[in-house]
């Protein structure tokens, strides 16, 4: 299972949900679908029509920039981060 680490501003939208999750899936897209099963509505916060990651959402798999098609190894660590933007 991959380890998924979510930002504070995201988990704040889902009361009671933690920042660290163990999720199965062989791509980022599959991991987010699985994550949405345990936290309904989570995928909509990260993925827009396309489907593609929202423009100001960054995902890193084992430290490398990723997109929905990026392969995820069973031991991977996935960081989900809001981009540095806004004001």
């Amino acid at each position: 299972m991959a380890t998924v680490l979510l930002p504070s501003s995201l988990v704040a939208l889902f009361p009671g949900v933690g920042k660290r999750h163990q999720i199965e899936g062989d791509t980022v897209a599959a991991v987010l679908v699985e994550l949405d099963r345990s936290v309904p509505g989570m995928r909509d916060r990260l993925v827009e029509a396309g489907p593609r990651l929202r423009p100001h959402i960054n995902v890193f798999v084992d430290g490398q920039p990723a997109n929905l098609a990026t392969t995820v190894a069973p031991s991977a660590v996935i960081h989900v981060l809001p981009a540095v933007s806004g004001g």
Partner: protein
Amino acid sequence: MTKRVRLLVGTRKGAFILDSDVSRRDWSISGPLCEGWPVHDLIVEPGSGAILAAAGNPWYGPAVWRSDDGGGSWSHSSSGLTYGDEAEPLKTVWSLATTPDGALLAGVEPAGLFRSDDGGGTWRHIEGLTNHPTRPTWGPGAGGLILHTIVPHPSDTNRTWIGISAVGVFETRDGGVSWEPRNVGVRAEFNPENRFPVTGQCVHKFAMAAGQPETLYQRNHCGVYRSDDGSETWQEISDGLPTDFGFSLVAHPRDPDTCWLIPLSVPEQGRYMPDAHAAVWRTHDRGASWIRSDDGLPTRDAYLSVLREAMARDTLDPVGITFGTGTGQLWHSSDEGVSWRMITDTLPEIWAVEAVVLDD
């Protein structure tokens, strides 16, 4: 039963709730709510009393927020708020309304309409509007291609009016299956080759006259208008106002001849209150004449703007009027717009104000 007044305020940095007794002199403020998301509109669902907020977050996308405990806790959903994976993504939810049969309607950017029959948990695209033959010609206003105004008929569930910038007013009479542009008589000064097109008007806001569903008042980029035939034709009622421009307009809850609005300087001259002299204007004769009210408002150096959703009225007698500015000031009148007091000047940029009267 004791009554109190609640103001729901949407800002660029979250929603706020202000409460007062019916004197409307002293207000408590709570917030920011909705995790600081930009909030474009707030309504209260009749019956349940739930608060609903139309929002869009630059990182986490569009959603409708809902609180069933008066703002203490919130949930959010955008399930079904999509045109599909092949189409342009939604940026934000701009407007909300309730229908007489208990559904919710949401207007979004890019412009379109969605319906929820489960209190905002899931949404269904009203395809008839998006599929209108004029859709390829729709162009955005300065705020984007947004569906910002939704006015359901108070009893006929098949009739709803919507406003899109910069496209105009549309009406459905068959529950959203088909839509007709309703812009006859409305100027589009920015289109000199055709000042009266079928669509392309920059409607900014419109409201229904109390007890007269066929009477609508419209605040447009180019003037102010009234329709007496359910929007099929519009008559200009701008004479007596200081400028052609402004965003906000609210109608009296009981007197169909009265509405309030706030003129602003034209966009190329700053979009603030004319001559930096703050004033709210009202008519008591369906727009035949206008009265300027500035008692209590700053009459110099007031470079204030008020956006389309940022003025509201309550239903008390006398009616209370509240408006919020682009610089975070909230002004209130508890005498139907004759005199004004500032509630606070420290909120974020105000985008929306709603006023409700609650029974304790």
